[in-house]
């Protein structure tokens, strides 16, 4: 089975590094090829890394609350870069405060994410779905 490549990073001015490290480790353990951009990642860096590594999916984290502002236009930038239909996940504390989850999910789906995960998501909660989505 061919190894799938994931681009991983925490978007915007966000420095929450702990979850990012754990995701990297868990995804590697699960057999993925992980390109971890770390924290404080701009949209541009996400797009470039995905193009360069011919990534199969982008995993965006946002913990600090500005996710809503930070991800606007990311899907469009991917389209512009010619990889508009790449699988894209997001997880973390996506908005400021705690809002009705169904609304948050809808909001980020509209912003171009294929799957949206709430806080306290464990690696085992989404890795099976990710494999399914990537046809593994």
């Amino acid at each position, binding site marked *: 089975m061919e190894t799938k490549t994931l681009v991983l990073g925490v978007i*915007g*001015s*966000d*420095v929450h*590094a*702990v979850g990012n*490290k*754990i995701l990297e*480790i868990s995804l590697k353990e699960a057999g993925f090829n992980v390109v971890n951009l*770390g*924290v*404080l990642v701009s949209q541009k860096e996400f797009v470039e890394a995905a193009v360069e590594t011919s990534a199969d999916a982008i995993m965006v984290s946002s913990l*600090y*609350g*500005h996710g*809503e*502002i930070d991800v606007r236009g990311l899907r469009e930038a991917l389209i512009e870069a010619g990889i508009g239909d790449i699988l894209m996940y997001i997880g973390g*504390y996506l*908005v*400021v*405060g*705690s*809002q009705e989850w169904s609304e948050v999910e809808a909001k980020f789906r509209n912003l171009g994410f294929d799957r949206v995960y709430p*806080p*306290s998501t*464990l690696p085992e909660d989404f890795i099976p779905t990710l494999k399914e989505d990537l046809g593994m």
Partner: protein
Amino acid sequence: MAEQITHDRLDWDELQAERTEVLASWPTGREVDLDEAVEYHRKMPLELNFGKRLLQAKEEGHTLAQPRAGVADLNSHRELLLFLQNEGGADLLPTTIDSYTRQNRYEEAEKGLAESVREGRSLLNGFPAVNHGVANCRSLVEALSVPVQVRHGTPDARLLAEITLAAGFTAYEGGGISYNIPYAKRVPLEKSLRDWQYVDRLVGYYEEQGITINREPFGPLTGTLVSPCISHSVAVIEAVLAAKQGVKNITLGYGQCGNITQDVAALQTLTILAEEYLQAENIDDVEITTVFHQWMGGFPADEAKAFGVISLGGITAALGKATKVIVKTTHEALGIPTKEANAQGIRATKQVLNMLQDQVYPENPNLAEEREIILQETRLILDRTLELGEGDWAKGAVRAFAAGVIDIPFAPSSQNAGRTMPARDNQGAVRFLSWGNLPFTKEIQDFHRAKLAERGQAEKRSPNFQMVIDDIYAIGQGRLIGRPR
């Protein structure tokens, strides 16, 4: 650049060109008039002075409670603080700054602020004080009846300091290491240290005019299993660097690890070490107080369980006689708290602080041993740092980080070696699974090895990275130690 920085006091006159530049970097900088600001401070009621309030508490042996809080819009933020003061009973107030401002992205902050006002909810995770400017901030300070501090996480906090201090804030959190390594990725340490010397020098200038401004290095760093020796080393260095610039009222911080003995030992050694190293630099006119941060890592999502974590933090702060405690909320694992949740965290904390006001954690051999370990480890790190700096703490800090002599676990900064790996021992105290390049003696290395072996034996597994991951999740999952199940 590492060659350029020194720990010597910046010349005030020489600094004026840089100040002009800083103040010009965003329109509200124009509002700063230092002479007028000093006058303003002089007229402020004494009970609003943060540092003075802390000294009073220290003298009385009380622990004060302070929340974190900040929203984008001025009126909402004022209301929030008034609520925490009146309904929460906060002894001290904060103004938490948003993350764009922390990265000096004032334009994005401006957009976030505008959108927040439009939508009637905060889209920013804090209060963009630079964008609000001096006059607006003053209206805030004036509305309150307890002292208020700027809390943030800004590598280059020069403009923020100019504006908020001119606005009558009397306390300012942060430091060249503690607001860089956990809060940035690519900011050179020389730069953040130098930018914070500017801030400290500015505070020193206020002190010269007789205005006490409290400074507080950010103790918890990454908030996740940070061993006392690491955060104490950073705290002492930042204290010395601040004092060199004329700062006279310093609060040193430590983030709860969860083993009460270790936490109390950490609080007790913080002052000992700071005074020791200040003394060595012939500085003896600095007042040191302490701040204990309730658990800074991942929280349980359940609010009742979160109350348990919060209360344990309050109790440890009281028994360890911290001068103040920074309070978490039951919404910690849910998102930025509502003002009600924030006030509840303060009230739960104050209940235990008041109940334990006249009690202290008993002196005992384990506590003494724990203090001894922290003292030894921290001194090893600090002495090697000073050696690397050839007697200069600023140079030493830069070189110590480069050499991994100071190394903060889980820090995002490229300036950080990232080779240490903490894990809890069998009693939940934070030890090192890997100490990377920390300048530990063989004896101390053996101590950590033995402590983790003891836990490994109890859990029938050899100490490894899975322990660390388990420990990171543990408190959120209702335990302290990440035991296998």
